[in-house]
């Protein structure tokens, strides 16, 4: 990586550390999902800094460890915007920066309903070495990852991704369904995918005592995701699918830990993905920026 790029990434990392440890935390109630989205957006003015890791097995090639940093900001109560930086290490190969994403989620309805729609718009600029598997789309299959990093990096992708998130909360359970349509802007067909999720806190009532290990701090669930082909060949043929139990632990200190072992459901899928993530929500980021620039409080 070029010295300028390295400097920029170090700068970003240092800035994130400053935010994480300097600004006051907010207790988050994060969903346990890694791939699916529910209809809950970030609280306005809060910034959540997240790090996620995916370890993946690779038949016929080298296993990999892909990771991404995520900066999620509640612009308003109906709009959340996120910025991602992605990278990966393929064992016995190399470590590479694989690109960035800018994602926006818009709550479409004013009030809570039985089904709550959220519109998701994302722009991705990444290279072919991207392995974070943040979604299943098109005809993406395990064998695509056999290419060496040096070769894969030569492929540059500009992609737009749309999702319709339909999420419902009932008796403490959250059920969510995400339909995905993605298009590589360099003259590729639209590709499709899906993600389904269900999760519930281990206890519905909050404890009257402050506690780290109270059951209401843990949210367990399961998600399933995969590709649905493309515009010319829609369906399950040559697609990969995963089933993944998920668990989130929302600590009173403002940290959230997430873990999810994912299992490939067919021969086109990686046999096993181990995902984990850590996040910290920071309250008052918008106010801090305003203060720095001399705005009113």
């Amino acid at each position, binding site marked *: 990586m070029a010295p300028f790029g390295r400097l920029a990434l170090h700068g970003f990392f240092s800035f994130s550390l400053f935010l994480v440890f300097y600004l006051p935390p907010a*207790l988050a109630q994060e969903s346990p999902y890694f791939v699916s989205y529910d209809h809950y957006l970030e609280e306005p003015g809060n910034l959540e800094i997240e790090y996620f890791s995916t370890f993946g097995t690779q038949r016929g090639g080298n296993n990999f460890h892909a990771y991404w940093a995520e900066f999620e900001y509640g612009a308003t*109560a109906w709009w959340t915007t996120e910025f991602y930086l992605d990278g990966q290490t393929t064992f016995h190969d190399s470590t590479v920066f694989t690109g960035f994403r800018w994602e926006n989620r818009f*709550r479409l309805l004013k009030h809570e309903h039985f089904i709550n729609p959220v519109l998701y718009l994302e722009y991705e*600029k990444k290279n072919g070495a991207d392995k974070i598997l943040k979604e299943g789309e098109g005809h993406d299959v395990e064998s695509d990852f056999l290419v060496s990093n040096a070769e894969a990096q030569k492929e540059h992708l500009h992609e737009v991704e749309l999702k319709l998130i339909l999420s419902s909360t009932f008796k403490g359970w959250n059920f969510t369904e995400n339909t995905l349509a993605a298009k590589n802007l360099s003259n590729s067909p639209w590709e499709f995918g899906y993600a389904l999720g269900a999760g519930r806190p281990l206890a519905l009532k909050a404890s009257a005592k402050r506690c780290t290990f109270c059951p*209401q701090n843990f949210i367990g669930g399961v998600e399933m995701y995969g590709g649905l082909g493309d515009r010319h060949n829609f369906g399950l043929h040559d697609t990969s699918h995963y089933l993944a139990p998920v668990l989130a632990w929302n600590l009173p200190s403002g940290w959230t830990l997430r873990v999810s072992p994912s299992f490939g459901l067919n021969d086109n899928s990686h046999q096993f993905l181990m995902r984990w993530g850590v996040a910290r929500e920071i309250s*008052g980021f918008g106010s801090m920026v305003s203060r720095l620039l001399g705005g009113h409080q």
Partner: protein
Amino acid sequence: MKAVAAALVVSASFLAVAVVLAQTRSSDKPPVAAASKYHPAVYAELQKAPEKARNRANPLESDPHAVAAGAILFEQHCAECHGEAAEGGKKGPNLRAAEVQGAAPGAIFWILTNGVVRKGMPVWSKRTEPQRWQLVRYVKSIGEAARAAESPAPKP
């Protein structure tokens, strides 16, 4: 190299959007802590609760732990906007105000569930229903405590 430069441009845009939104929000008429200084429209949201929602009784009304649990939830999720003592803050109105204390528990629960999304109050249905009722119980207990403090002590 190009990817990193583009990443920096996008991150700068991200920061700029954050700044603009922060400035916009802070340039709105700032609410102050005194109840009387909040615009009545702030509390009018409570009146928008449908009758069915307003008439719902708090199932945890007699739960001896509801106030304590609600107080912790309030501190964790609400105090940032509404103030540590619910006296009102930079973003959220005073919850000690007569409009809130006089409101039906069901109306407060409805606001918590639906938020006032266009005016900055997020949807809190991600907290479970019992937890929202615990919060309602705590908010109402603030008024009860204030009334108890104001009433003259019984003569021995």
